[in-house]
Structure formats: structure tokens, C-alpha cells
């Protein structure tokens, strides 16, 4: 069952008098529970595609269906509801609210859902346990390390038990140890809760965790392969160049 279904998608941005085509001819299906990543050079369209899947943007042509709903046809309110309940975002720059404590940052989306305080507390503590930050509930983001901030962001994305988590270069600002820690955490959540993850990344460390790797180039899908295919091709390339 595919949770994300992208058909002949094209995305253009107005630039000056004309248009810049950031994505074209994109056809991708992502099944529930996948741990997939978009890779490709800078400017290849990874963020643009993630934004459309996250209903923060709409396609120019073609369709993007998320959980059976066409992104282009959602009202503001419906797309806000979709993001609030079903899609978690993780950003390269963490994007935590600086005036809120860790607890409050994680709690935020639940407040929009009008959940009771008791339930909220339970869910927040559970999410912080997943990322191993139960001892930092009352800290402000400014007091945390980058790795800790990103773990808070993961807890914030996970607390509402979303179907999909979209992570745009989540490790770009982290050192190797923190990157591995974060990826292991996300992989675990993916296995245990069946949450679908879609990454965008340049990071080799991330790629080795992905089950599926979709390579973009100049706004087009260059390759769409499994971890095994990817690894084999990599090895053979290394072999060839030797």
C-alpha cells in the first residue's frame, strides 16, 4: 500500500520573466514503513520535493498524493490538519522554538490537537524517552548541543505518532557520532512504530542506513534503487576506478 504517490510531477518557480523548472517528470511511490532517502547534488530538487510531499507547497503539474489525498486539492485548513496529525518534519537547522523548554517544544503540535494535559504529558515523555532526553525536559534549546537539539526535533516530529516523517538533511549540522545516534534512533522508530521516513541528504553516513535510495539530478529521478543495489553499484564503481 503506497502512502506517497507521485505522478508526472513538475514544479516550476517563477524567476524573472520566465520559469525555472526545479522538478520534472517525477514518478515515485513510497510504501508505508519505508525508510527512503532522496540524494543528489545541491539544487537537484530534494527540498522542493519534500516540501510538496509535506503539503507546504503544491505541484505545478501532475499529482502528489499523500495518504490518498491529492496535495493540490487540500484547503489551507486541510493541509494544516494533515501536517499537524500525520506528517512530522525534521529540519537541518532543528527549528526549535527558542522561548520554549524541551517539553513545550515537543508538546506544541499536541496543543493544536486539543489533547488533554495528562495525555499530552504521557505522549511527550514517551517521545523524549525514544530519543533519550528525559533528563532535559526543562532545558531551553539554547542550553542543548546540536545533537540534542536534533533529538528534540525528532521527538517533536514523533510525538503525534505521524504516518510520515520528512527529514531534510537532518545530519548536515551534526558530527559523525551524533549523526549515527540520530539515524539509529530514527531507524528504530521506523521498525518499531512502522513510521515511514523520507530523507533528503548528501551525507554518506545517512545513505548506509536507507533501505531505498532515490537519486535526483537536475530535477529528475536519475536512479531509484534499494540499499543492496546501491551498495553493489558503489562497490563496482570503486572496483572500476581502482
Amino acid at each position, binding site marked *: 500500500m503506497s502512502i506517497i504517490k507521485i505522478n508526472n510531477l513538475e514544479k516550476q518557480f517563477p524567476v524573472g520573466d520566465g520559469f525555472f523548472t526545479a522538478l520534472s517528470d517525477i514518478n515515485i511511490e513510497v510504501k508505508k514503513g519505508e525508510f527512503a532517502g532522496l540524494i543528489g547534488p545541491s539544487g537537484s530538487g530534494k527540498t522542493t520535493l519534500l516540501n510538496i510531499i509535506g503539503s507546504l*507547497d503544491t505541484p505545478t503539474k501532475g499529482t502528489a498524493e499523500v495518504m490518498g489525498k491529492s496535495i493540490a486539492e487540500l484547503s*489551507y485548513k486541510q493541509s494544516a490538519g494533515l501536517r499537524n496529525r500525520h506528517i512530522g518534519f525534521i529540519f537541518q537547522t532543528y*527549528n526549535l522554538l527558542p522561548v520554549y523548554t524541551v517539553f513545550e517544544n515537543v508538546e506544541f*503540535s499536541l496543543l493544536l490537537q486539543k489533547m488533554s494535559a495528562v495525555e499530552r504529558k504521557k505522549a511527550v515523555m514517551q517521545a523524549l524517552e525514544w530519543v533519550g532526553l528525559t533528563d532535559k525536559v526543562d532545558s531551553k534549546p539554547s542550553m542543548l548541543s546540536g545533537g540534542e537539539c536534533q533529538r528534540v526535533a525528532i521527538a517533536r516530529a514523533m510525538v503525534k505518532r505521524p504516518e510520515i516523517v520528512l527529514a531534510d538533511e537532518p545530519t548536515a549540522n551534526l558530527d559523525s557520532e551524533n549523526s549515527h545516534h540520530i539515524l539509529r534512533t530514527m531507524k528504530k522508530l521506523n521498525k518499531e512504530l512502522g513510521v515511514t521516513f523520507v530523507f533528503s541528504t548528501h551525507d554518506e553516513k545517512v545513505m548506509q542506513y536507507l533501505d531505498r535510495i532515490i537519486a535526483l539530478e537536475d530535477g529528475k529521478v536519475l536512479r531509484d534503487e534499494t540499499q543492496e543495489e546501491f551498495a553493489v553499484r558503489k562497490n563496482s564503481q570503486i572496483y572500476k576506478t581502482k
Partner: protein
Amino acid sequence: MIAIKLAYKNLVGAGLRTWLNVSVLSFAFVLMIFYNGMIEGWNRQARNDTQDWEIGEGQYWEQSYDRYDPYTFQDAHKPVSEDIAAMIDRGELTPILVRQANMYPEGRMQSVLLKGVDPNQKILKLPTSDLNNVQNGYSAIIGRRMADDAGLKVGDKVLVRWRDKNGMFDAIDINIAAIFKTDVPSVENGQMYLDINVLQEMIGLPNQATLLVAGDNSSLSEIDGWNFKTTDFLLKEFDALIQSKKAGGMVMSGMLLLIALLAIFDTQVLSIFRRQKEIGTYIALGMTRSQVVGIFTVEGGAHSILAAIVGAAYGIPLFLWLDNIGLSFGSSSQDMGIAVADIIYPYYSIGMILSSLLLVVISATIVSYLPARKISKMRPTDALKGKLQ
């Protein structure tokens, strides 16, 4: 609720800038209340004083009398009927006879209004009883400022010249029996109070009066041949002055409010510009753009709530203190020609405080909303990049 909590955290988190805005706004707020309170306090005191000293519960004017037109004074008098005399005896009315005259203190000519009053009247605060214990015939009491202006002291004699009922000039030395102190300039400026019987005799108009002042126990009913003037009518000029003072005060606190509002507007514009990424994050977390507009509007508007709290923190003690000691305007204020007590006690009404509060809250919310509206035109992806403009 989430907006309020967030607003509070963001405001307090913004530190100095917030407190700067809040202090200016609270200052506008406190000044607005203070100024209105002063004016209202003055208004109430001055109305009371003017009533006590001059106009009582209203006045009955002889039909041709017009206090604003001295040319009417010559003929504005008529006999006091038996009915009226009975009312005077019961303390419901007191008669005053008015006559234009000249006096010559130290040889200078100065016009003066002679007013004949009943030495035994109890309606006005004028110390008319001082006219009772005088031995030598023609005596008068005058106010202190009048005495200073004319250079007169108690016991001085001053030459007064007037026309009698036939228009014939007559002159006599009048003895200053007493000098009284009042906060109501209109009751003393250019005026001299004599026993009404003496004045009637001087002019040759026995038992006549120009106007009748009504006391507390007067029924204020119509009296044939006399025009009743209400206190509102008699205080008309004063009310107009109060209104203009109030408007002046509004302009002053309005300017201050405007400065505070501009500062909030500026803060809002800046914070919306600087916090694009945060705005994008709210949207990614599932807020609609109008909800984010709401957050920023509440946040800006909350300046006014903080201002009210801060204003109350220093305003209430200040007001209580002023209420105790009153505020002195010094003697210079006596030149205003209108009743000003030496010490004014401000008067604060709940309605005035609430409407000031409402004005501040609503205007702060509006200036916060105006820049926040821009958020609803932002594309969330641009906001997340934080790269607008």
C-alpha cells in the same frame, strides 16, 4: 490559549525591547488616567465651590438681567413680592441687588460691581455676616485678590461713585469691613459686597433685587416675573473650559500613546521579519497561517496587558498618594479667572480607567495586527528558508 502562552513567553524572552515598549505604553496609560483624574477632580471641586460661593442650586434672574451684559444692570431690578419674601425668610432664597459703579482707590478709577447681599443669608459661603458687626454706616466686604488688585486693606476707606435710580451720580466713602478668601475668582473679581438694605437705600430702590439665589431646600419651581437659570446654564462656560482641557489632555496622552504604538508597530515588523523561520515552523507543525497571524497579533497586543500591569504597579501607589496629598497648582493658577482650589484632589472613575484601558489594548492590538497580516501572504517554504525580502 496557546497564543497567549506563546505571546507571553516571546515577549518576556525578547527582554529589553519589550520592556522599553511596555514602559512607554504604561506611561501613556498612567498619564492618560492621571490627567483625566486631575481634570475630573478639578471639575468636581470647582463646580462645588462655584455652587457654594456663587450660584447655589440655581438663580432667578429679573427678566432684563443678563450677567454677561453690564448695560442691563441699570434697570435689572424689581420689588421682592411677599411670596418671595416668605421664601427668603424660610432660607429657600437669598436676594442680591446688583449695581454698576466706580471706585477710586488711591485716586485711580476702577469700575466695580456693587452687590447687595443679605448679611444673614446661609445659602452662599460668602461671609456676609461680616457685614453685621460694623458700626459706621457704609461698609463692604471684598475678596483677597480684589483687595490686592485695588491695594485695599481691612479698615481702609475707598470712594465709590454710582448712579441712583434716577441716574443721578452720588458718591461716598465705603469702609472695607472684611476681606475673604475664596477659590472662585468670579465671585470676587471687580466686586464689592454690601448689606442689601444699605445698597437699596443708596440707589433708592427699597425692597428690590436683581436676582435670587436658590438654596438646598428650594423647590426650584417657577416664580412669576423671574427667569430661572439652572446650575447647568450658570456653569456652561466652565463646562466648556473643562471640555477643552480634557481635549488638551487627550492630545497630550494621545501623542504619547502614538509613540508607544509606533514602537510596537516597529517591533512587530522587525520580529516578523526576523522570525520567518519560526513562522515557517509553526506552519509545518500544523498551524494555519491565520493562526500564526493570531499569535503575532496577540503577542503585540499583549504589550498593552503588560503595560497595564506595570502601569498599575507604579500608578496605583502614585494615585493613592496624590489622592492623599492633593496637587497644588500654586497661586499663579488664580489668574485663570475660573475656580481652581489651592489643592486639587484627583478623581478617578472606574469608567474612565476602563475606557483608557480599552483604548490602549485595542489600539495596541490593531498596530500589532497590521504588520502580522503580512504572514498570511507568506509562502511557508520561503518562510522556512528565512529568506524573504
